[in-house]
């Protein structure tokens, strides 16, 4: 490491091999998953879980009644929700990181173009007018995409300074779909549908099952993969549209692809588990502190950190009280102090 590297505040951190840190995060994820399976109303000892997993894999043996008990607890109840937490955390964090690059702003979160409001509206609409769970999910994804389309459309309508107009378009579509959501809530049956909507909007992993995961995982992981492959393009976009174009990037096309992937990933999280805030803003930020701003590494690191963050939040939501807390409430409360940390860093000369 050179003297110049030591002199600057930030560089010191990521010259400690960003790749090494990414590798470390990769190792932390299975550990996080393992720990998350232990906690809950009926805590398991680490050894118990290991014995169960070995028995499940056919390597070890275990008393049948104990095996059945742990099987129900771990395999049927905890595992799907733990996997859902990791998947959702990764999706939100990666969309946040991608939107931050496109909007050249470290304080942007996945909701910037109205996708969360749109998805909530779509899901609520599904709950009130169609009672099928599949239609709720579909409505949520379509609502999110519609909101982003409105945001983009408003942005394009006024053209010229497109990034600024996109932000305003996002504010517009966010407000529009929040208004529509309020309307749906008003129309909902106040004894059954309204509480269901409100509870679901707080964010809950309880609904997620293996069949949902099988349906969602390919799309979410696909979006994450595409965004990770676009890492260098995201770096160029973070330099501004004109500069990115003169560096050799087809800006409009790449922007659209990034927005599509980020929108799809975050709309899917809403449809799977409702509104879960802060992850999309905080995880990329912390990842950037650890491994630097290069998106090729930042996107996977954000995914891993987002997954770990949500695993932790889910563990808290399952253990803090005997009745499970909605995970959206937990991330909201845990996220706020972390957000102060973000603000402190942003203030400290991130070009602001």
């Amino acid at each position, binding site marked *: 490491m*050179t003297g*110049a*590297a030591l*002199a*600057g*505040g*930030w*560089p010191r951190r*990521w*010259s400690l091999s960003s790749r090494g840190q990414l590798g470390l995060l990769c190792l932390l994820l299975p550990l996080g998953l393992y720990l998350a399976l232990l906690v809950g109303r009926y805590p398991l000892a680490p050894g118990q879980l290991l014995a169960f997993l070995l028995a499940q894999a056919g390597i070890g043996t275990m008393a049948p009644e104990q095996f059945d008990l742990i099987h129900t607890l771990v395999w049927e109840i905890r595992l799907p929700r733990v996997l859902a937490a990791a998947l959702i955390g990764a999706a939100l964090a990666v969309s946040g990181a991608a939107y*931050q*690059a496109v909007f*050249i*702003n*470290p304080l942007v979160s996945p909701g910037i173009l109205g996708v969360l409001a749109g998805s909530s509206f779509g899901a609520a609409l599904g709950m009130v007018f169609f009672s099928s769970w599949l239609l709720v999910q579909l409505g949520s994804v379509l609502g999110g995409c519609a909101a982003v389309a409105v945001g983009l459309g408003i942005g394009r309508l006024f*053209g*010229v300074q497109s990034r600024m107009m996109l932000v305003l378009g996002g504010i517009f579509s966010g407000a529009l779909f929040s208004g529509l959501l309020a309307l749906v809530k008003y129309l909902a049956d106040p004894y059954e549908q309204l509480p269901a909507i409100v509870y679901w909007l707080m964010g809950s992993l309880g609904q997620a099952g293996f069949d949902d995961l099988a349906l969602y995982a390919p799309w979410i992981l696909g979006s994450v993969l595409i965004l990770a*492959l*676009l890492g*260098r*393009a995201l*770096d*160029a976009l*973070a*330099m*501004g549209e*004109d*500069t990115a*174009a*003169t*560096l*050799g*990037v*087809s*800006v409009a096309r*790449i922007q659209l692809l990034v927005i599509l992937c980020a929108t799809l990933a975050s709309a899917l999280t809403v449809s799977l588990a409702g509104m879960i805030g802060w992850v999309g803003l905080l995880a990329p930020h912390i990842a*950037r502190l650890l491994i*630097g*701003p*290069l998106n090729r590494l930042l996107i996977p690191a954000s995914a891993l950190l987002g997954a770990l963050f949500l695993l932790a939040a889910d563990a808290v939501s399952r253990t803090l009280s005997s009745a499970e807390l909605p995970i959206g409430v937990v991330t909201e409360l845990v996220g706020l102090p972390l957000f102060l940390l973000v603000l402190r860093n*942003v203030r400290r*000369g*991130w*070009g*602001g």
Partner: protein
Amino acid sequence: MKPLLEALDVHFAYGRAGGRPGGHAVLQGIDLQVMPGEVIALLGANGGGKSTLLRLLLGLLQPARGEVWLGGRRYRRWSRPEIARRVAYVPQSQLVPFPYRVRDLVALGCIARRGLYRRLNHDDDNTVSAALERLQIESLAERNFAELSGGQQQLCLIARALAQRAPLIVLDEPITGLDYGNQWRLLGLIGELSREGYTFIKSTHYPEHALSIASRVLLLQQGRILAQGTPQQVITPDTLRRLYGLEVALHPLADGRTALLPDL
């Protein structure tokens, strides 16, 4: 010799989609030929159309009428990477709210040849190192770009343009915001690079800078070319009065240079 870049009867107007005529006319009937090895200075008052012309010359805007040709082909027929291998752009400033290292920022110049997906190889690393060395900013390589001074940032942006290995470099008011020493050091550097074979187009607010290093000057007034030619032909008390509404005396010095003294 063929021109690197050529604008033929270019018109542009803001306010209508695609810059079609009918909105507020910004540029009218611009003709410009950029030959290899030239240093072209673009002078004009604020709002005179300098930035718009630069954006048209970079292919970031499409002319409403007329055509911009790059290497004998219309702009719209080139892809973005093909353009990037021929023209590099140095913006006036670069606000990056993320802590990019100088080296990584300069390496973005390699997109022009390596594309967005292929891994940077040893050759690219050498290109980046050479660009940093050429501007004598190797010591800044590991620093956070956002924390550097304006002058250092400008050098990094030029290094990024060199890493693009494009023969033509377009600079948007590169001198603005730099202190007196950095201004003249940067001009000296542009002169040196032009002797090494690079071609430059730069917009500037300073006639004296145009006099000192430009091989050709283009004066823009309200979207039209007021005059075009060598600095000595074009920068006169008369044109300066018309451009800036200011009486400026030109004093030839014994060593062949000319001093500009505004009469306030």
